[in-house]
């Protein structure tokens, strides 16, 4: 009596990337990897570092001084990502009473609010009607030598 082996597909198969041939060249005829491969040509690309999600990342220019305490100054460049889920502690760009504003999302006594980083500007409690998140600020670029 033969024992048939029944193969049942996994109910939730894990997706595996399809194997593809690597397009790297290899030095040496023996087939052993060359030590030179560790020193492959690389350049440091700021884009790769600062823009994690190119399709949802936008640049903005800061006007005003309410966020100076966090090192965000008038004239600075903001890298804003719409794909990131805002969390308390994040610096956000938000639509507050019809104006695009940069604020820090925080909680005060458990109540969510938009805060500045300058004692001259009071926190704004979040009410759904007036406030809408535009994106999360992932980086600030402060250029010392302007063009």
């Amino acid at each position, binding site marked *: 009596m033969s024992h048939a082996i029944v193969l049942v597909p996994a109910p939730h198969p894990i997706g595996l990337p399809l194997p*593809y*041939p*690597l*397009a790297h060249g290899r030095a040496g005829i023996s087939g052993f990897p060359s030590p030179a491969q560790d020193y492959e040509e690389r350049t440091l690309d700021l884009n790769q570092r600062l823009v994690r*999600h*190119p*399709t*949802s990342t*936008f*640049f*903005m*220019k*800061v*006007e*005003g*001084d*309410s*966020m*100076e305490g966090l090192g*965000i100054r*008038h004239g600075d*460049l*903001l890298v*804003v990502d*719409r*794909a990131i889920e805002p969390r308390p502690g994040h610096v956000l*760009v938000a*639509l507050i009473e*019809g*104006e*695009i*504003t*940069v604020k820090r999302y925080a909680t005060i006594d458990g109540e969510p609010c938009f805060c*500045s980083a300058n004692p001259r*500007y009071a926190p704004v409690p979040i009410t759904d009607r007036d406030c*809408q998140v535009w994106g999360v600020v992932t980086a600030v670029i402060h250029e010392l030598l302007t063009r």
Partner: protein
Amino acid sequence: MFGLIDGNNFYVSCERVFNPKLNGRAVGIMSNNDGCIVARSNELKALGVEMGTPAHHVRHLVDRGEVILYSSNYELYGDMSHRVQATLEQETAGVEPYSIDEMFVRMDGFTPEGLLEHANSLHWKIPRYTGIPVCVGVAATHTLAKLANRIAKKHPGYPGVCILHAESDEAKHLLQQIDVGDIWGIGRRLNERLQILGIKTAWDLREADAKRLRRKFSVNMERTVLELRGISCLEMNDLHEPKKRIMTSRSFGRPTPHLHDLQGAIRQHAQRGAEKLREQQSLARAVLVFLKTDRFRPDLPQYSPSLVVEMERPSQDTRDILHAAQEALRKIYRPKYSYKKAGVMMLDLTDENRQQLSLMDTPQTEEERQRSHKLMATMDALNEKMGKGTVRLGLPEKNAPWHLRCAHRSPRYTTNWDELMVAHAK
């Protein structure tokens, strides 16, 4: 299954992402080359302003502050279109751009529940990532997907997402509510002829004798009938809403990195596009060129750019179209990438007869128009090269057409460092 994703009032939506004060307002976008309105917000539509209206016809509304007009900002619209497309590339099995604001995606291998979930996720993700609100229509054929998208846009019972399963009662019910003239590829004349035959709704057409219609009309009519039944038989290049856009594209049998090959392909597409324009007596206001590398070769570097070039004036002249398309190609081409596909779209079409009328309305000779256009272009170039504000308009020419005098293009928020959106720290 095919999904059709299209941006709602695309050009206006692009403007609203960076200027939320425009939400809820009657906003129109006017073409730079003939001052006609090429895009409208729903609020502007509600005021009864038709597509292609010369801008000065709504001048009184603009002066009263009821309507806001912008000059077309193709750099922005092209970039935003690219972002929508790139987001879809990440989220789906493949994207076929159909126009600057409409894209087909493949949605194979889903259960019905999974399909709905996927469609819903695209519906919220695109506006979340890019700011552009979209509608999603899904079905087994391009024609049905287009209808599903229309339902998603207009039918209150399907807010933003609609999946048509060809054999379902639900689909039957919906198709019975759709006029046959609203089906892709059924223009006014065909509509009239079908109505005479007693075919009034999409369901009627679906149920009609396909072979008989092929004899009476064309093979494309037969294919449309089959598509309504869920049998996919229309190629992308067969699909067009002649009066709205023309798209010609082709995949290369063997991917190529050579500019020479791409120029040849673009030349063919541009020529074909111009021919189609003339066949249907349309003029194009802008031309979009796109390239794609093979996304199924992730081992190879990926680069899939696109660019819109606005025409000097709306045209159906092969030379003008070719010139615009080659210019776009030169700007986006980069060596060492292996391109799999190239395409050319004719955008923002206008009827050639109507064009004559609008030119007669505007009190300006061709020579004056060209001078104004050159002036604008020179100004832009100087400001770009030497810094914003280097050259500014003084008092407007008394004789300049109104749309040029009031014309302002919004900043190129995503393609120009000097025109970034401002975040107020206050």
